[in-house]
């Protein structure tokens, strides 16, 4: 029998768990607010005292420094804001190219690593361990100063005359360029690709629903070729020109040029990240239950079919989340480019700090930009991830 004597109905306030928890929450939030107040207040006071308020008006001032490679028109009389934009585009280009190369290479190495052939599997292992255990900065220096600047001088370029020239200043490729009046052809090319994708998915859907062969592959390929072909003739027969690199003065002019710095960064980043992607691929494939493969074999599928129909689709579900973080790492690691002279966002941000003397606003801008790039990348890949996950019923 429980009596009121031993268990009073009202718990004293200093021993009431709910009250204690609430008080603890309030105190800890006050401490956090106080700390942030102090940090931010101190920052604002100092910047005001030094006459450097947190404003971005300086971005309109003339930058005054050169940028070697830019995908939009830039010269040193343009503004700091323009320079930062050039840097952002350079970051995006090298990251996108890096992600593409790293993914292809990573899948290849990951499959090599799983190969039943002893030699191939060991080569994969050596590649992965080499890249995973050496800092990226060291690898970048190795690629840049150890390999790419050791290529022949401009006048002794390795060349396939008329097509490709390789020297220590970069890779120069003969590249098609739109001639005058070539816009019609360019438009038809884009239209052809879009139409082909639409045709492919519609016809494929029809086959799935009706179970009737629609030859979706062949039809869409025909669309892909025919539409641009019409555009080619409609634009007068010669919409494209070949831009051949020619040695003029100190350097080659014309053609598509991949600079030494860009190539070294791309190769360094892609190979480094591909080692991690290879491990992700291996873990993804090994996560597919053995029974699935045995069952596929029992049904009589070929190895390539097992890979593409049974293993990869299931492995993807395991692989995508770690792949996202590898892609984000690659993008962020591209900021190491400043040691080998590729001018991406961070390198140009640092020059801007030096020339405009506005460290804090520029750092905030850089951080916000990287954050935005990373969040955007992970949002897109998370949407894809949701689509390929098991729909559990």
């Amino acid at each position, binding site marked *: 029998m429980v009596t009121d004597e031993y268990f009073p109905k009202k718990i004293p306030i200093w021993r009431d768990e709910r009250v204690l928890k609430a008080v603890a929450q309030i105190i800890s939030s006050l401490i956090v607010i106080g700390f942030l107040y102090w940090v931010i207040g101190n920052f604002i006071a100092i910047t005001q005292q030094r006459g450097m308020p947190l404003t971005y008006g300086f971005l309109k001032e003339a930058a005054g420094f050169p940028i070697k490679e830019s995908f939009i028109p830039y010269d*040193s009389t343009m503004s700091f804001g323009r320079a930062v934009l050039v840097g952002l585009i350079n970051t995006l280009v090298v990251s996108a190219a890096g992600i593409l190369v790293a993914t292809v290479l990573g899948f290849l190495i990951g499959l090599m690593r799983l190969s039943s052939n002893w030699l191939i599997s060991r080569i994969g292992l050596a590649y992965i361990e080499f890249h995973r255990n050496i800092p990226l900065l060291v690898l970048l220096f190795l690629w840049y100063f150890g390999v790419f600047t050791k290529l022949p001088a401009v006048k002794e370029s390795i060349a396939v005359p008329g097509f490709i020239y390789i020297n220590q200043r970069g890779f120069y490729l003969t590249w098609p360029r739109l001639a005058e009046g070539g816009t019609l052809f360019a438009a038809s090319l884009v239209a052809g690709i879009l139409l082909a994708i639409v045709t492919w998915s519609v016809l494929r859907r029809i086959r799935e629903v009706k179970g009737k062969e629609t030859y979706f592959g062949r039809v869409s390929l025909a669309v892909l070729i025919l539409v641009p072909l019409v555009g080619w003739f409609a634009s007068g027969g010669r919409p494209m020109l070949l831009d051949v690199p020619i040695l003029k003065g100190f350097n080659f002019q014309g053609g598509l040029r991949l600079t030494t710095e860009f190539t070294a960064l791309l190769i360094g980043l892609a190979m480094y990240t591909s080692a991690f992607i290879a491990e992700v691929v291996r873990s993804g494939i090994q996560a597919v239950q053995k029974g699935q493969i045995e069952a596929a074999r029992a049904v009589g599928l070929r190895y390539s079919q097992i890979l593409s129909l049974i293993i990869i689709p299931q492995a993807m579900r395991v692989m995508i989340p770690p792949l996202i973080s590898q892609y984000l790492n690659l993008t962020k690691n591209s900021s190491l480019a400043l040691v080998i002279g590729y001018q991406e966002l961070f390198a140009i941000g640092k020059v801007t700090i030096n020339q405009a003397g506005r460290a804090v606003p520029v750092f905030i801008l850089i951080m916000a930009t990287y954050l935005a790039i990373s969040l955007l990348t992970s949002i897109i890949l998370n949407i894809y991830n949701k689509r390929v996950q098991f729909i559990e019923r």
Partner: protein
Amino acid sequence: MSRKLFYLFSILIAISFLAVACGAKPTATTAPASGEVAAPVIETVEVIKTVIVTQEVTVQGTPLPPEVLKPKGYGETLAAVQANGKVVCGVHTSLLGFGYLDENGRNIGFDIDFCRAVAAAVLGDPDAIEAVPITAADRGPVLQTGEVNMVTRNMTWTSKRDAEWGNFTWITFYDGQGFLVRKDSGIATLQDMDGATVCVTTGTTTEKNLATSFADAGLTYEAVTFEDTPSVYSAYVEGRCDVATSDKSQLAAARAGFATPEDHIILPITISKEPLTPAVPTGDDQWFDIVKTVIWGLVNAEEYGITSANVEEMKSNENSDIRAMLGVEGEADWGYTALGLSPDSLAKAISAVGNYGEIYDRYFGANGIAFQLDRGLNNLWTNGGLMYAPPIK
């Protein structure tokens, strides 16, 4: 869980921003106001005191001797230096020729010798210095806070730095931005560099000067920029660039470190003014004058032919100006009384480090221990250079 934490933190940050926004204004307005008010308060107190004093004087009826008005801070540095027994100098520790460590780990160099000269003049001992290694970015702050007695660290004198950092004493080295090219490149003028690839350190005035001078001449170029200076020269040596650009003294230092220095030349083109000048903190005009006078003394010594070797016998020279400068008894005061120095302090400085020409030749002359650099603008005015100091008399 993490989502909850995220909301909690974002709310906390938002609250603290609000708190700062509400709280910052009053503190911001009171802080400068109190500073402005504080000074007049002290002055009024002094005024009241003087009134009392003058009343006493008129009662006694005797005239007061005229007193030299000395602003606050005058003479404080000399007193502190004498009390500590050493001159504190902000210096470079890794710039060949100007401030670097020799094989015995001693901090030596052209800039250091001016610090030693001041120590010899003030304390009679050239080794009574404390060399504080500072970075390029530290130069302003250590002057503004008065952490060091002088900064002799390869520092270009500009109007902005003079206004913001401290008092610049006297130019000890006339430097300028130049170009380093391969001898067999055939480049001799700025026009020859049209279309060339130029290696440059990023975030420097060098980068801006380069852009301006090429744009003014209507020339195109490609800049390969690096964060750290050694990368600039290794890329240049590998042949990644046709030209390397920086201050001529730095180019000479880099060239001296090449495997085959004779294959490279520094062009006789100068595209910027870089007057390297020791500076002292503002607020003590006596110390400012002392450092200036010591530098003048070293330049005058070269004009008169006084060297560290012959300084004793020069004391009996028939030229009374020389005798006065060296502090021979009975000769005119060159200003040492007002500066609080001993009459022979310049003689001590000269015997400790030699005259200006000796210092220059020690590091950059034909047998210089750092590298060879033509005196050019740093010659005495009598030899067609710019080295011209007020007379010591």
